[in-house]
């Protein structure tokens, strides 16, 4: 060292400049020469390398090897950054070879892990994900081994080219080391995702998020969005407790975003708007949470015709009482985010909505109300003007919330009113929407409106059946609801026609079932229309028969379709058999003298 004297200071200076060029300057490179600074950094690193070999004699072998490894590492990263993978690989390989014997010592472990991280990235760029996996898993193992056997904050790679007085504090060392390991986990999350080891990938994402919180390495907004997105993963696995925890953490961390002054401190209007959008996005995740919880509960509670099954309800309530005592124990510790302060806020946030299945109207209503509040919050940002798709999706969720709440409602009149609310929110949007640009949403709305009217009609019929005799008001109501349902089913079917207005000979797989269900429901609706005019009644039966026949004929022609509509087909066949006889009888009544 002493022999190098002033030379060493110059070497360190060069190294430092190279790092600054590569990490800081390169961000300002002109678009036409995106790698200008990287190339200059590379040249400097090469110079340093030469200076080192010149000083080789007399130096301490191990120290030199580590320094050279640092340079190989920097050169490796530099080459991969500039799209020269093979050269990058060579450098990184040389780096790990040099370090191999010392990889568990405090001055090498961090560099070795980072080199392996980069080899992992490099191999993934070549679509060799399995190779990437081996590097990353070995980095993970090395971290664990080091922490077990030593655990002292290791030297940061940059320190090998620093003067003694500049060396980092233990705290800073530990922070950088942990960050490198967090990156390992983050890359592994991706590797597992690519290998379709979904559960493992989710677990690594979760751990990455957790570590970001622990080591304060996060932007609140981004972290919150990630956690909210992760909640949606748990949602799809029906893990409501985990889902709620992620969402609560997202909300808590997001609320910090407003308090922390942003890096530039010159918040523009755009930034403000972005922040509003993120908030609305998290609200939308909450909506989905409430919706899924209600819908899953409905699945548990319904009987074979889709009504609430009171026996099942009682059974589940007893079961829940038993489980309640064990509830706290069941809580998985691993999923908890944050340290004491944050944790308390997260728990307080969780209190606001349940994570167990609602079993009666009162419980369902509480979840519904939370969901509805988030609907309002999300709509504040996602207004129709400018955010058509998002806005409509939120309205659709709102409608779905009402739909599932209605399931828990025992009073038919009130239930009908809930469906009316759905119609009121969906119909005006549908009327404005241009199907040339929003074909998919437009179809969804047609179908949902049709279904809602259909459901209302069924409810009115059920209410009517309780009466001694159907009054003219109820009859009128039933008929008009049926007509509206028919109207929207027909609009949906029309949307499948080609520009020459011809209905497709064979239906596309993705619209097959909805189209068939639409036909089937229309058939049923014509059967339900009430009229005292026998001729009219005969006409309705005729139309109904035509729609039933469509189903039967279609499935005969395309047997593949049968699977999609088994129940409907069975009933249609039955009706096709029955209706002609009934019509015959009716005709006979009409013209008794023939």
């Amino acid at each position, binding site marked *: 060292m002493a022999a190098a004297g002033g030379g060493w200071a110059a070497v360190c200076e060069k190294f430092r400049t190279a790092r600054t060029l590569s*990490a800081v300057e390169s961000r300002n490179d002109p678009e036409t020469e995106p790698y200008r600074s990287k190339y200059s950094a590379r040249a400097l690193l090469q110079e340093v390398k030469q200076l080192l070999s010149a000083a080789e004699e007399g130096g301490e072998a191990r120290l030199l090897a580590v320094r050279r490894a640092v340079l190989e590492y920097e050169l490796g990263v530099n080459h991969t950054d500039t799209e020269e993978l093979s050269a990058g690989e060579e450098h990184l390989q040389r780096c790990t070879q040099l370090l191999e014997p010392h990889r568990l010592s405090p001055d090498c472990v961090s560099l070795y892990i980072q080199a392996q991280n980069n080899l992992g990235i490099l191999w993934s760029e070549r679509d060799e994900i399995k190779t990437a996996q081996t590097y990353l898993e070995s980095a993970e193992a090395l971290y664990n081994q080091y922490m077990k056997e030593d655990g002292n904050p290791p030297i940061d790679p940059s320190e090998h080219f620093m003067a003694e007085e500049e060396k980092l504090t233990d705290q800073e060392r530990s922070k950088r080391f942990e960050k490198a390991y967090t990156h390992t986990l*983050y890359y592994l999350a991706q590797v597992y995702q690519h290998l379709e080891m979904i559960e493992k990938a989710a677990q690594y994402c979760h751990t990455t998020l957790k570590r970001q919180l622990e080591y304060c390495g996060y932007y609140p907004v981004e972290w919150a969005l990630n956690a909210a*997105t992760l909640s949606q993963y748990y*949602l799809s696995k029906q893990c409501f407790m985990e889902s709620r925890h992620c969402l609560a953490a997202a909300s808590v961390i997001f609320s910090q975003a407003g308090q922390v002054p942003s890096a530039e401190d010159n918040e523009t209007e755009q930034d403000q708007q972005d922040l509003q959008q993120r908030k609305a996005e998290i609200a939308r995740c909450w909506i989905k949470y409430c919706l899924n919880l209600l819908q899953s509960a409905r699945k548990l509670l319904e009987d074979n*015709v*889709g009504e609430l099954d009171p026996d099942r309800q009682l059974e589940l309530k007893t079961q829940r009482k038993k489980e309640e005592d064990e509830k706290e124990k069941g809580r998985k510790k691993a999923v908890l985010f944050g340290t004491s302060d944050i944790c308390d806020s997260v728990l307080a946030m969780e209190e606001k909505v349940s994570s167990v299945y609602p079993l009666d109207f009162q419980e369902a209503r509480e979840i519904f109300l939370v969901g509805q509040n988030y609907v309002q919050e999300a709509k504040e940002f996602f207004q129709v003007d400018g955010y058509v*798709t998002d806005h409509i999706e939120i309205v659709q969720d709102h409608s779905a919330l009402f739909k599932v709440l209605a399931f828990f409602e025992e009073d038919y009149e009130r239930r009908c009113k809930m469906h009316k609310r759905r119609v009121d929110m969906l119909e005006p949007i549908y009327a404005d929407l241009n199907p040339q640009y929003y074909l998919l949403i437009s179809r969804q709305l047609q179908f949902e409106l049709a279904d809602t009217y*259909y459901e209302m009609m069924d409810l009115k019929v059920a209410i009517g059946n309780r009466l001694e005799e159907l009054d003219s008001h109820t009859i009128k109501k039933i008929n008009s609801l049926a007509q509206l349902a028919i109207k929207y089913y027909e609009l949906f079917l029309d949307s499948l026609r080609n520009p020459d207005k011809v209905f497709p000979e064979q239906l596309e797989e993705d619209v097959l079932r909805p189209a068939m269900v639409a036909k089937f429901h229309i058939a049923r609706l014509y059967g339900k229309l009430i009229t005292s005019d026998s001729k009219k009644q005969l006409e309705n039966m005729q139309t109904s028969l035509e729609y039933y026949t469509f189903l039967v004929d279609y499935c005969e022609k395309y047997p593949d379709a049968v699977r999609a509509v088994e129940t409907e087909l069975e009933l249609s066949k039955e009706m096709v058999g029955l209706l002609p006889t009934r019509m015959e009888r009716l005709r006979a009544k009409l013209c008794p003298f023939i």
Partner: protein
Amino acid sequence: ALPLLNSPSIEGDAIKVYVRVRPPSEGTALTDGDQGLCLSVLSSNTIRLHSKPEPKIFTFDYVANMETTQESVFSSVAKNIVESCMNGYNGTIFAYGQTGSGKTFTMMGPSDSDNFTHSLRGVIPRSFEYLFFLIEREKEKAGSAKSFLCKCSFIEIYNEQIFDLLDSASAGLFLREHIKKGVFVDGAVEQVLSSAAEAYQVLTMGWRNRRVASTSMNRESSRSHAVFTITVESMEKNNEIVNIRSSLLNLVDLAGSERQKDTHTEGLRLKEAGNINRSLSCLGQVITALVDVGNGKQRHICYRDSKLTFLLRDSLGGNAKTCIIANVHPGSRCFGETLSTLNFAQRAKLIKNKAVVNEDTQGNVS
């Protein structure tokens, strides 16, 4: 696996995929001989890639070999789309491929000619000519009863930001949606066109504003997606009834595929966390992918599609016709990129419009 999530539907046709093999640059073919080529065109819709140990055979809607003329590419790829555009369909043509595979030649023509009458002019100028030819013909047929209005815009997407190529002074623009008009770029210049020559002028002017980069690996590589959009509006007066029809024609030149950082095209590549940047800004994308694979349950994903996907979503999701021209270079040095381009094109063929209709099956069948 591709920046397009939804594709045309009405006739249920998947995206049409055309592969075009460019001839190697002069000189290299002679020295390399046939052994220097990594692929051979077997028929008008199959191509064989000389991979080892087993060669791979790919089938597409159309494979254009090295001798295929510009006119023939236009006729088989774009003609039909321009015609549909006159009939009220939206249409989109993409060019995809590695830098140097001939995207610009296919779409624009030889780079040194500003002359759109050049015999080697590409798909875009030919589409202009054909479009205006059809418009003139319609006008003649219908007389004063029918009128047309054509407008165009030209934007580029670079680093997930949108820039107006017709107004180089403009700052980043934003995508918005209108309930009647679909997705639009807020504030983008719309220029009225009255002839093919005029359209071509606008195109070349904008083209010069594109972001191009050179590295020691690639002499020149386009770093941005460029989207040229023509809106065709027709108004027909029939007695007292006025019939207005409007459609979009999108001509898209994607960034060189080897530089594609678009989330959907990245394939297996890991997303790298910046060394300085303390945030792992891509974690969200990983989680998003996890949620995507979920089992169709209701969920919301916080991260929106890429700008390109979003911009083209409407024209792809409704009554639209779409085709992709996958350009490949036959040299054996390009094997890796060619393979990934062909794989991409293969995936593109599978894309269909997922017109999922929310439909409740329970309890309605009584």
